[in-house]
């Protein structure tokens, strides 16, 4: 039972280790309550995020994907988030082509000190996804084959 | 000034009565500067302070009607000499951006209010649109030797977020104009202190105290006269000056001009056009001190 049926949707988050993951920690330390849908994957830098990750997540049945990195000019690796921004901008334009509403994806900047801001980001994005409802799923016995085909296509 | 300026003009109620001379001089000055004013057709009262003390929707509805009248002229903004009117018109526009509030206001109106029309003060457009430098160019009769203090009153640029004009604690618009007219501006420390506002009738004592303080300060800094941009301030300081003197056993004889009156003077308009005779505290001495050279226009008058 992955998501609480009706209650939760699948939301995947990719967070850079230095700012946003820390920001999410700060939010936790501050007990800033948030919706429980989001599952966070930690990456060293938003620049590490391959647009493929997001597409894969959506194809595999995520209802929303959230990316968060350090504020521009404040990247721990000095320029990773600029690369991220460029790639994600382009990727977002392709989502409709793949049959996903671009609103299912969002990227933002949250620093390690911005626990409050992280809370707001999670709340508003989760709302946004719940408004859209569940994303179209590829199910059934052939699902995995279809997926591998799509993966190959990408 | 090559491009000609046109504005919808909202006089406000006091312009028909106690601040007649403000209205006269504002129109005269704009005329002299080739600024065209068209009266807002069949304008009504903005509700002033009393309205917003009763209810914000009522207050905004009263203003909204006038904003609509402006829209009916095919214009998206108007100007008014009176800060109180200005505050209400601006507040109405601002608050009506909030849908829930707008609906409440529309409930009170015949037809849904136009939410696009903005408002500026006569002072603001003179400074920002016409420009102090250009005013300076038009001066034919500099106010040399006139030591004047500029008093702005409390709501001309407060709250800053709403009024979006000049500095909230230390406005300079009138100071700059007066300087351009050749007057000696004495920095007035209580520029934005309240004069007692509309309490003149129900609680005169308040006005006596607050306006009294303003007059005392004006005297202490050696101002021969004060300029104001607000009918209420002017009325309290001018019309009630004798009352104030009696109440505080002071003996002030400080003329309280509307800044437009002194502008007009410097632009060569006659005292009559500017309603100098409407002032309660006689400006005679001050004006005589000024007019070293006889003004031909005045002879004619």
């Amino acid at each position, binding site marked *: 039972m992955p998501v609480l049926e009706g209650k*939760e949707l699948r939301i995947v988050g990719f967070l850079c280790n230095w700012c946003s993951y820390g920001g999410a920690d700060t939010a936790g330390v501050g007990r800033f309550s948030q919706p429980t849908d989001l599952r966070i994957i930690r990456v060293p830098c938003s620049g590490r995020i391959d647009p493929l990750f997001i597409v894969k997540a959506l194809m595999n049945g*995520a209802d929303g994907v959230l990316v968060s990195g350090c504020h521009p000019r*404040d990247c*721990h690796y000095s320029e990773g988030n600029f690369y991220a921004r460029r790639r994600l901008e382009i990727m977002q334009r392709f989502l409709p082509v793949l049959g996903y509403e671009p609103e299912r994806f969002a990227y933002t900047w949250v620093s390690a000190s911005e626990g409050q801001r992280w809370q707001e980001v999670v709340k508003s994005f989760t709302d946004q996804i719940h408004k859209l409802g569940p994303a179209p799923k590829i199910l059934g016995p052939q699902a995995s084959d279809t997926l591998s085909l799509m993966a190959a296509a990408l | 000034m090559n491009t000609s300026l046109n504005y919808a003009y909202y006089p406000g109620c006091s312009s028909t009565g106690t601040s007649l001379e403000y209205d006269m001089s504002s129109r005269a000055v704009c005329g002299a500067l080739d600024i065209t004013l068209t009266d807002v057709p069949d304008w009504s009262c903005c509700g002033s302070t009393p309205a917003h003390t009763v209810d914000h929707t009522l207050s905004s509805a009263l203003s909204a009607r006038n904003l609509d009248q402006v829209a009916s002229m095919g214009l998206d903004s108007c100007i008014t000499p009176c800060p109180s009117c200005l505050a209400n018109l601006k507040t109405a526009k601002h608050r009506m951006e909030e849908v829930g509030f707008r609906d409440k206001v529309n409930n009170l109106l015949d037809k849904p209010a136009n939410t696009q029309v903005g408002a500026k003060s006569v002072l603001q457009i003179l400074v920002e649109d016409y420009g102090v430098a250009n005013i300076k160019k038009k001066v034919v009769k500099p106010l040399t030797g006139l030591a004047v203090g500029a008093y702005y009153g409390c709501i001309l640029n407060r709250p800053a977020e709403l009024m979006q004009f000049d500095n909230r604690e230390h406005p300079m618009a009138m100071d700059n104009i007066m300087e351009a007219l050749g007057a000696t501006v004495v920095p007035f420390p209580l520029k934005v202190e309240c004069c007692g506002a509309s309490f003149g009738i129900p609680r005169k004592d308040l006005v006596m105290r607050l306006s009294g303080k303003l007059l005392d300060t004006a005297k202490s800094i050696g101002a021969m006269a004060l300029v104001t941009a607000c009918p209420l301030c002017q009325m309290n300081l001018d019309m009630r000056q004798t009352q104030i003197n009696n109440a505080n056993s002071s003996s002030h004889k400080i003329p309280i001009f509307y800044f437009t009156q002194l502008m007009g003077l410097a632009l060569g308009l006659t005292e009559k056009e500017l309603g100098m005779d409407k002032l309660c505290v006689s400006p005679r001495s001050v004006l005589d001190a000024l007019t070293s050279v006889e003004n031909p226009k005045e002879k004619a008058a």
Partner: protein
Amino acid sequence: MKIGVFVCHCGSNIEATVDTAAVAAAAREFPDVVFATDTMYTCSEPGQDEIVAAIKEHNLGGVVVASCTPRMHEQTFRRTVERAGLNRYLFEMANIREHVSWIGKDREANTNKSIDLVRMATEKLMRNRPLFSKKFDVNKRVLVIGGGVAGIQAALDCADGGLEVVMVEKTATIGGKMAKLDKTFPTVDCSSCILGPRMVDVAQHPNITLYAYSEIEEINGYVGNFEITVKKKATYVNWDSCTGCGICMEKCPSKKATDSFNEGIGKTTAINIPFPQAIPKKAKIDPEFCTKLTKDKCGVCAKVCPSGCIDYEMQDEFVTEKVGAIVTATGYDLFDWSVYGEYGGGRYPDVITALQYERMLSASGPTGGHIKRPSDGKEPKNIVFIQCVGSRDKSVGRPYCTGFCCMYTAKQAILTKDHLPGSQSYVFYMDIRAVGKLYDEFTRRAMEEYDTKYIRGRVSMIYPKNDKLLVRGADTLMGAQVEVDADLVVLAVGAEAAVGASELAEKLRISYDSYGFYMEGHPKLKPVETNTAGVYLAGACQGPKDIPSSVAQGSAAAAKVLGLFSKDQLESDPQVSLVDIKRCIGCGKCIKTCPYGAINEMEFRGLTKANVIETICQGCGICTSTCPQGAVQLQNFTDNQILSEVNALCRF
């Protein structure tokens, strides 16, 4: 791979809103998981021993701990598994405290979420590979940026510890804000008497190289091997031969230069030595006020200088220094209070800042220690101190408390009485923040023994009345509006991040908060570290601090550096990129994108291939997501590992 899973209660921190037993039970069903349990405190000694035991008993190939954030205990548990003979990278953490139990009350949802996070961790762990650090040499020299009291402390401690220290100070003298102070609280002892000797020590210490009037131009490299470019700003005086005799100052005809050391109280000469005890005691020319440099007239200083060290042609000079660690001690600056129009916004000469007042109190200051009104030089009788000017004020974007104003105001009130026994001081305050040894007693003394009148309320406006200033405030305890006829008003102007702090942070690759103060590694456990290895913080650059705390941090930072340098070699983080020669087509994209120039080209059987220099690679993984072939992979964050986490989440 045989995997063991340990789900931590963290006392009630996690257990209260997550059914850890259920999480462990669910984990047992995951592929490869051979052992799973829930424990009270996994990080405690018994908790760690349990892990070690389990690894031995079930001969586990990898371990997952579901507890707090990896930023807290990843290192701890890596050491634990290592003790049991596993490679430290065959370990993963699932953050079920900060990211689950602390942000939601719904036990069912939390438990379910925790299970997902553990599944992710195990899926990734299955694809983890043993990684081994490389060792590299350390350059045991340290750079201290900023010569205030914190920087001085750090520099001296390091130097005494036998390290070579390079100190770079922006202004012409070290000493920072403390050098400008007359006395210090709560002991009221003379600031320069305490600081002076320390400044001299810096100048004379054989291990310390001081670059005053210099700034950091560029920083390259990494912990153990930084390369720093220092910009020595043109002083137009050859410091090697300048003796600091001061004749140039006496003779200089241009006496209108802003006296920044005296906070603009009084003026100084175009060529000047900041103050008599300056270190280094060397003259410099302020070009904008020097008639020789502006109009090519004068040239008096060149004529009078006995050692002929004036050089009007001098240019900025750049020098490189190699160091292994950096201590940042850039301090703070004062908030620009002119935004307070109601306080005159700078229009009234007799409204001054506390630091200006401090200069006035100082015997070596422009007034020779006499309190005078800037306007007419008269002795003030009523002095009003206003607290929280640019502190605890959202409306000016400074919601934080500066923390030391309450104390220095009490000090200044006391000193005022000493200087002018006939005077009366009034302090408008909101709360008295006097936490610290003997601090509260001190503020009490200001009230009880020195009869300072404390008024609880903010001031709404100040305006001139005759030759006095009328201060109109509130006494909220009286519930009344109050007025004071003041001769002099002293504003306790708050502290903000030093000018240029953020630019420097970007050069250092450390993060800073929204006010420009530098972020420490961990608010509790890493107060002087940053998230960049080898870069440490000291003093007010991390947040407003008084002298004792700044000094303490200076020493703490020094201790960290000495600790770092206690090893001759450092271990590189093996989580770096690795090129798969077979896949690499030598397109060079990764070389272009790498922020560190950690990738170069190499020849391999006549083909060009990318090659990662492990010690330079910082492990950001930008190359990995750039490589069209997937040939460059950031180890421990490979595409496969991340995608396995994605699948773990979405496919179930």
